[in-house]
């Protein structure tokens, strides 16, 4: 979109640009203005405004939808850092509403109940950038082909269990490493196997990296979890239930921010991990049956 004075808004470069600015940071789920202030005070680089954190969505059941605009506006007014919010997969009208509210990033999220079981949102039609979850490289590239400007692992949100996020990051970065070693003929096969556009597969082979930033989300509960995600190749982390479902959110939030910056420095990680009180209890994967696995939502 170009204005009369020659400046353009909502270009891929401008949208991906905000994702670049969030690298090395922590994006925290918050449900009210008070939590948003705690997150900003702790050094969050952005907040995700939502009515219930994933652990509560999981507990309550029922249909989970976009949050009340009044609540999102309350959080926007409370902080100076970027504010993100979630829409249901395929629910482009919820996205139109969030764009009208002026949120800075939209998460088309499997944590909410999907609105469309075949299609994701056409994200090129929006000025606001989108982040989408992925469990593997094919899914990540399909989301980029629809206009996503940031990819995050899905993990298994609301469990406090990092195992699924680790699986997803290893899937994504492992296949990226293999593609950079592939010859031209093999790239056609990679595109078929991944069910992803050939052009994007060739771009990875050429540049050696994914076209947009890849962040980690789903199950981060401790500073060590955040540093693990970063050492595996994540470029920033989302922390959902892990902070405000713990015993003492403010110091834990600050510790996770420091761990994300100094993710290779074990001395710092040891220092910030001390005396944080109990993390969220967490759920083992075999305690969750198939229909309650958020990561399986998305196509």
């Amino acid at each position: 979109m170009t204005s009369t004075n020659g400046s353009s808004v909502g270009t891929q470069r401008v949208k991906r640009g905000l994702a670049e600015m969030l690298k090395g940071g922590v994006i925290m789920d918050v449900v009210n203005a008070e939590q948003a202030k705690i997150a900003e005070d702790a050094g969050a680089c952005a907040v995700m405004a939502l009515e219930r954190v994933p652990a509560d969505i999981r507990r309550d059941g029922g249909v989970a939808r976009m949050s009340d605009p009044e609540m999102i506006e309350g959080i926007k007014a409370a902080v100076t850092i970027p504010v993100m919010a979630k829409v249901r997969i395929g629910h482009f009208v919820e996205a139109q509403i969030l764009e009208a509210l002026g949120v800075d990033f939209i998460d088309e999220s499997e944590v909410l109940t999907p609105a469309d079981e075949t299609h994701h949102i056409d994200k090129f039609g929006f000025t606001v950038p989108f982040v989408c979850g992925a469990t593997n490289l094919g899914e990540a590239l399909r989301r980029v082909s629809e206009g996503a400007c940031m990819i995050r692992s899905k993990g298994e949100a609301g469990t406090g269990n990092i195992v699924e996020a680790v699986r997803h990051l290893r899937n994504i970065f492992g296949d990226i490493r293999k593609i950079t070693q592939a010859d031209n003929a093999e790239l056609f096969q990679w595109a078929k196997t991944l069910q992803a556009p050939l052009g994007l597969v060739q771009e990875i082979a050429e540049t050696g990296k994914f076209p947009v930033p890849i962040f980690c989300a789903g199950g981060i509960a401790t500073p060590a979890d955040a540093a693990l995600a970063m050492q595996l190749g994540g470029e920033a982390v989302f922390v959902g239930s892990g902070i405000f479902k713990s015993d003492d959110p403010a110091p834990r939030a600050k510790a996770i921010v420091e761990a994300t910056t100094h993710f290779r420095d074990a001395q710092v990680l040891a220092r910030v991990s001390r005396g944080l009180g109990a993390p969220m209890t967490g759920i083992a994967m075999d305690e969750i049956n198939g229909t309650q696995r958020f990561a399986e939502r998305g196509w």
Partner: protein
Amino acid sequence: MNPVVGVLALQGAFAAHAECVASLGVSVREVRTPEQLEHVDALVMPGGESSTMSQLLLSSGLFDAIAERIASGMPAFGTCAGMILLASEVLDGRPDQRSFGAIDISVRRNAFGRQIDSFETAIDTPFGEFHGVFIRAPRIERTGAAVEVIGRLGDEPVLVRQGNVLAASFHPELAGDARLHEYFVTTMTTARKV
């Protein structure tokens, strides 16, 4: 001896800056600790969240170390949040937000608006036309007498220099254009004599 350029890597777009500097054939290091700062001759401060970086500067001990180095002449180049960190006055910042006061400008955080207002456009500079990418960008509302305005968007300054400090409200590192980094490295930076 060739200079080593550091990129402050606490949070933000440090990777894109490091790529720009490396594309010039110049050695580049990420800086997260005072110890790492000792090994660089100049420092690039990237965009990101200035409130986050300001806190991490204090907890890492880098705030005082960087302030000392800049005062003793180390060249510094800040973009967007990095410019806010270098400014003498920050408007609409957090009350506890600190800045180095290394360049005599007043900047207003996020003054160009939220992300839906972020834009890219052409800027006139002595290096020729520059493609400016503005992301939730700060505005330079005042420049002191010692500050040289190098680039403007319409009437307002967006690229400024005072002595060893260069600051831009936009993101040259996102446009794949290393001319500003080249200016910073070749005309402002020399390796320290050991």
